[in-house]
C-alpha cells in the first residue's frame, strides 16, 4: 500500500515534530502532547460531522479513556502504557456499542442532546463516586512502556505522536473507503443512501463506535501526559470545546484536526495569560466568524490557495 502525497507529508511532519521536541522547552512539548491527544477526540467529532451529526458528548469517551488509565494503574496494577490505553479503548468501544444502537436512530439536535445527556450522566456518577476522588478526581500512577519508565515528558510526547500519526493514516484511508464515503452521502441525503442498498444505520453505527474508540485513545493519552483525571473531562463544556476545534479545522482532511487543535492550544495559552477574563469571548467571536466566513474550516484556506496557484 503506497503512501499518498498527503500521507507522506503527515509522516514527515510527525518525524519533524518528534525531532524538534529534542530541542524545545518542556512547556511546548507538554502543550503539543495535549493538543495531539485532544486532536484524536476531535477527529471523532469530525467523523460524526462527516455523517451530518454533531456530538455534544464526545467528552464521554474522552473521560472513559482517561479514567480507564487512572483506574487501571491504581486498582488493577497495570503498568504498561499500551495496555492501559487498550483498556480505555475496550471500555469505550463496549459502551459505544450499546449507546450506538440507540443513538443511530437520532439526528440533528436530538443526537446532540442525547450524546450530551449520556456524558452528563457519567459526570453525575463520577462526581458522586467518593472512592474515585469525587470532583477532585485522582492522579495517575507511574507507568512504563515495554518496561522503560520515562523520566521526562518526552516519553508520552513520542508515544502520543506515534499513535496520533497511526490514527491519522488510518482515518485518511477510512475516509476514502466505502463506509467513509457513505457517511458523507448520509449527510447529503440519507434516504437516497438507502435506495442504493446501503444500510445507513449500519454505517452510522460503525462510524460512531470507531469515533468512540479513537476518542478514548485521546483521553488515555491526556491522562498519561497530565498525570491526573477528574470528572470535568465528561462535562459538556469540554465536549463543546471539541466541537469548536472540529469546526475550526473543518472536515476537509485528517490533518486539519491536528492543526486546529494546536492553534487552539496556543491561542488559549496566550489568551489565558494576557486576557484571563475574556478568552472565552474571543473564542465565541472566532467561532461566529468561522461559521460566517469559513464554513468549511481553516482547511478550506489551504484548498483555495492551492487552486489559485494551479
Amino acid at each position, binding site marked *: 500500500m503506497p503512501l499518498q502525497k498527503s500521507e507522506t507529508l503527515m509522516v514527515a511532519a510527525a518525524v519533524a515534530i518528534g525531532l524538534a521536541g529534542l530541542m524545545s522547552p518542556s512547556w511546548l512539548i507538554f502543550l503539543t502532547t495535549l493538543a495531539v491527544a485532544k486532536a484524536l477526540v476531535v477527529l471523532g467529532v469530525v467523523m460524526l460531522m462527516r455523517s451530518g451529526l454533531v456530538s455534544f458528548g464526545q467528552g464521554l469517551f474522552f473521560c472513559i479513556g482517561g479514567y480507564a488509565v487512572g483506574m487501571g494503574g491504581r486498582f488493577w496494577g497495570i503498568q504498561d502504557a499500551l495496555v492501559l490505553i487498550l483498556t480505555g479503548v475496550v471500555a469505550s468501544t463496549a459502551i459505544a456499542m450499546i449507546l450506538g444502537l440507540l443513538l443511530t436512530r437520532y439526528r440533528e439536535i436530538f443526537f446532540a442532546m442525547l450524546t450530551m445527556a449520556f456524558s452528563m450522566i457519567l459526570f453525575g456518577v463520577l462526581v458522586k463516586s467518593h472512592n474515585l476522588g469525587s470532583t477532585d478526581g485522582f492522579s495517575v500512577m507511574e507507568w512504563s512502556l515495554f518496561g522503560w519508565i520515562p523520566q521526562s515528558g518526552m516519553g508520552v510526547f513520542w508515544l502520543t505522536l506515534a499513535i496520533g500519526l497511526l490514527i491519522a493514516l488510518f482515518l485518511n484511508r477510512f475516509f476514502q473507503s466505502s463506509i467513509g464515503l457513505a457517511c458523507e452521502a448520509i449527510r447529503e441525503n440519507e434516504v437516497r443512501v438507502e435506495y442504493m442498498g446501503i444500510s445507513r444505520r449500519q454505517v452510522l453505527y460503525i462510524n460512531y463506535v470507531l469515533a468512540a474508540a479513537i476518542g478514548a485513545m485521546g483521553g488515555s493519552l491526556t491522562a498519561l501526559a497530565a498525570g491526573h483525571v477528574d470528572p470535568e473531562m465528561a462535562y459538556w463544556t469540554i465536549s463543546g470545546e471539541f466541537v469548536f476545534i472540529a469546526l475550526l479545522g473543518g472536515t476537509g482532511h485528517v490533518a486539519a484536526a491536528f492543526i486546529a487543535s494546536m492553534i487552539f492550544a496556543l491561542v488559549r495559552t496566550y489568551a489565558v495569560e494576557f486576557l484571563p477574563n475574556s478568552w472565552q469571548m474571543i473564542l465565541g467571536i472566532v*467561532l461566529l466568524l468561522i*461559521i460566517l466566513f469559513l464554513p468549511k474550516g481553516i482547511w478550506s484556506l489551504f484548498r483555495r490557495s492551492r487552486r489559485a496557484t494551479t
Partner: protein
Amino acid sequence: MLTVWAILIDGFIYASWLFLVAAGLTVIYGVMRILNMAHGSLYALGAYAAASAIGWYYAGGGSQLWLAFAILAGCALAIGALSGLLIERGILRLMYGRDEILMLIVTFAILLILEDAMKLLWGTTPYYAWQPYAAMGRVDIDVLTVSGYDIMVLCLSIAIGLGLWFWLERTNLGKILRSIIHDREVSEAMGVNVRRMFTITFMVGATLGAVAGGITAPIISVVPGIGIEVIVLAFAVVVTGGLGSITGAAAGAIIVGLARATSIHTMPQFELFIIYAVMAAVLIFRPNGLFGQATARKI
C-alpha cells in the same frame, strides 16, 4: 408518609423553578427552531442584574419588600428584552436559513461571549440578594416547613405558564406565531412579517430566561458559571417534555422535579444522574419527547 409529602412538596417547588427556566427555551425553539444554548447566560444575566440592583437597594437603606420586587422584576425585564433584541438583531439575523444544528453552535458561541461579558461587567466575586428571601418568612405545613419565597415562585410559575398559554392560544399575535410554527413559508406568503415575529419571540424568550434568573437570585449566590449549570437542566426538561411545547415543558418540569426530589429523599447519591436518566429514558421510548410532534422526513 412524611417522605412522600416531602417529595411532593420539594418536587413541585423544584418543578416550578424548572418550568420558569425552561419556558423561554421552548418558546424560542417552537417558533424559531433554534435551540438556544445561550439561554443559561440570559438567566445568569437576569440573576446578576437583579442581585446587584437588590444589593444596591438594601445597601441604600431600603426595606420595602414590594419595592425590592419591583426593582428585581424591572431589572430582569429590561436586561432580558435588551439583550434579546441585541442578540437577535446583531447575530442571529445573519445566520437564518442555516441548519438547526449549526444554529445550536451559533448560540454556543453567544454563550461563550456572554459568559465572559458578565465576568468583565460584574467581576468574579459572588453577589448576594438574600433579603427578599428572608423577608418572605416560612410557612408550616404540618411538620414540614416551606419558605414563603418558594411558594411565591410556585405561584409565579403557574401564572407565567397560564400567561404563555393565553398569549399563544387566545390572542391575535399568538395565532400568527402558531401559523409560523405550522408552516413558515405559507404564513409568510399570507403577509406575516416573519422576521419581526422572530424578533418578538426571541425577546420574549430571552426575557423569560432573565426573569427566571432574577427570581432565582435571592435563593442562590450569583457567581460565574451558574448559567452553564442551568442550561443542561433546562435542556433535559424541554427535551423530556417535547421541544417547542409549553404543555410539554410543564410536564417535563414536573417529571424531572419529582424524579429529582425522589432521588434526594431516598438515594441522594444519584441526584444528578437521575435527571439525565429520565431524559434518556423518555427519549428512548418517545424520540420527540412526551408532547413533541414528529416531523416529516425529507426526501
